[in-house]
């Protein structure tokens, strides 16, 4: 369980007010922190994983204060930074082994055995485990980091945008399958709604350093759906016929009106987290 108390971050040379006094409780399980670029996701993750000092406030991770019990927190978390890359000349086995030895309390031999076992556990990495990591695909490189988190067997894992920069869909699916192997508390940031829905039961929507929404994916969707549907038309359904057919127009009418929109040639879809974002103005309609 993570309890965030009045967490505030001001940068001297960056976004002036990256986090504006966040209060939040994250229960165990997988939670996605979603928001657009610059929303404050990475700042939040970096503070929680003890890489960055907050300006004020603090957080408790399983009762341990990130400021007062820093060393103890570090022994119980793994944080995979955004767009991190492996040292190219080292193999996946060497990288995982180095990470395990760095965390302490493990002999070279035990770390080697555990690294092999963990890499075998993650599909696709087994055959490349002794290849220099700069020869691997983007998805495989990200999986090495997930393997580190998996092998460390800690209470809490932070993943900062684990699939950003990967070619969809295969590489992302590879990483998702690896993330599903993680136990305990997993906090991941993403700006892909699909990823949040795929991997987590709970989501926190943040923008401009504040929390806009939080809850389970299902709760947020049912609250937002409220018996509505998503309709996409190639014309403005509220305007005169034949007007502006160059753009896709999106509306959220009641479910009972679905048929009339289908008859007019519009596409009817279920409401997703994307619509929640659009409603908050966090995403711009294409």
């Amino acid at each position, binding site marked *: 369980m993570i309890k965030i108390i009045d967490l505030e971050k001001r940068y001297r040379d960056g976004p002036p007010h990256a986090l504006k006094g966040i209060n939040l409780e994250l229960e165990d399980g997988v939670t996605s922190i979603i928001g657009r670029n610059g929303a404050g996701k990475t700042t939040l993750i970096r503070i929680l994983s003890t890489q960055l000092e907050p300006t004020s406030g603090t957080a408790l991770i399983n009762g341990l204060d990130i400021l*007062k019990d820093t060393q103890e927190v570090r022994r119980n978390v793994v944080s995979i930074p955004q*767009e*991190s890359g*492996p*040292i190219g*000349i*080292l193999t996946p086995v060497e990288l995982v082994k180095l990470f395990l030895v760095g965390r*302490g309390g493990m002999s070279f031999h035990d770390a080697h055995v555990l690294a092999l076992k963990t890499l075998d556990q993650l599909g696709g990495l087994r055959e490349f485990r002794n290849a220099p990591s700069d020869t691997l695909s983007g998805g495989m490189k990200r999986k090495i980091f997930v393997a580190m988190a998996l092998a*460390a067997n800690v209470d809490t894992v932070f993943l900062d945008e684990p699939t950003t920069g990967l070619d969809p869909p295969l590489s992302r699916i590879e990483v998702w399958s690896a993330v599903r192997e993680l136990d305990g508390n997993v906090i991941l940031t993403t700006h892909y709604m699909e990823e949040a829905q795929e991997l987590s039961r709970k989501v926190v929507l943040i923008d401009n350093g504040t929390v806009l929404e939080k809850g389970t994916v299902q709760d947020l969707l049912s609250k937002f759906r409220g018996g509505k549907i998503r309709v996409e038309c190639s014309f403005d359904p509220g305007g005169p016929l034949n007007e502006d057919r160059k753009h896709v127009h999106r509306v959220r009418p009641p479910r009972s009106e679905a048929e009339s929109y289908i008859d007019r040639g519009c596409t009817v879809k279920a409401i997703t987290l994307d619509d929640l974002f659009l409603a908050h103005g966090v995403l711009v309609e294409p």
Partner: protein
Amino acid sequence: MTSSSLTVFSLNLKFSFLLAWYYGFRTVTRGPSYVVASLSSPLTLLFLVFVISRGRLLPFAIAGGFITLVASVALSSAGDAAFLRLQLRIQDLFVASSVSPVDYMLGLTLSYLVFSLPGMALYVALGGLAFHIFTPPLGSAGLFGVLVLLVVATSAIAFIIAESIKHVRNVWGIAGILSVVMTVLPPTFYPYTYIPKYALWALSISPATPAAVLTQGFFGLARPLPYMAYVLVAETLVYFLAARYLTRWREK
């Protein structure tokens, strides 16, 4: 850095040695161009000194080449440390774990020592076997001690640079300038007696200066200045502690 991270000072030597082995030895075996690159400057200067002095200053250049090799490899490591921090974000991975900044610094320092080993072997061959400069055994032991202190001091300077810069491209220029100022200007390739005392003191801001003066004394190339040992030890301590406590392992 928080008070808790300041008070915990336990070393994880296993991590440091493994990092040194992987980052040093693996780099040398899988990318030998590093070795050639680290040797190119000292060997070029050695050749120039030989030609210009008609061989007279060759012993100085061989002894000084040793110093230049170690110091320049350690200083240019700022680029690697910045790359690991800013580009690969490997340092962040270790910050949010039990790895301490001293473990990490020591691992990188040792890995640069591994980079230097082939070059050092070449200089041992030149100085010991070809030109018989490194003859007194006590001098050779002294040189070893000087090189250990030098690699710690210059790696600490490199770490301070790597932690201070915000864009990885800037570090190549800074490290290049520092490498020249701190390893070629000091009396590494010429007798320290050629420059006035005030210049010697000014150049002592570089640990390569006391290291070179001591080395020239060890092998009878110039009059020994034993107090330079204190200067080198003090500088090593100051640079190491600055790297440990002035750089921020946990960013602010």
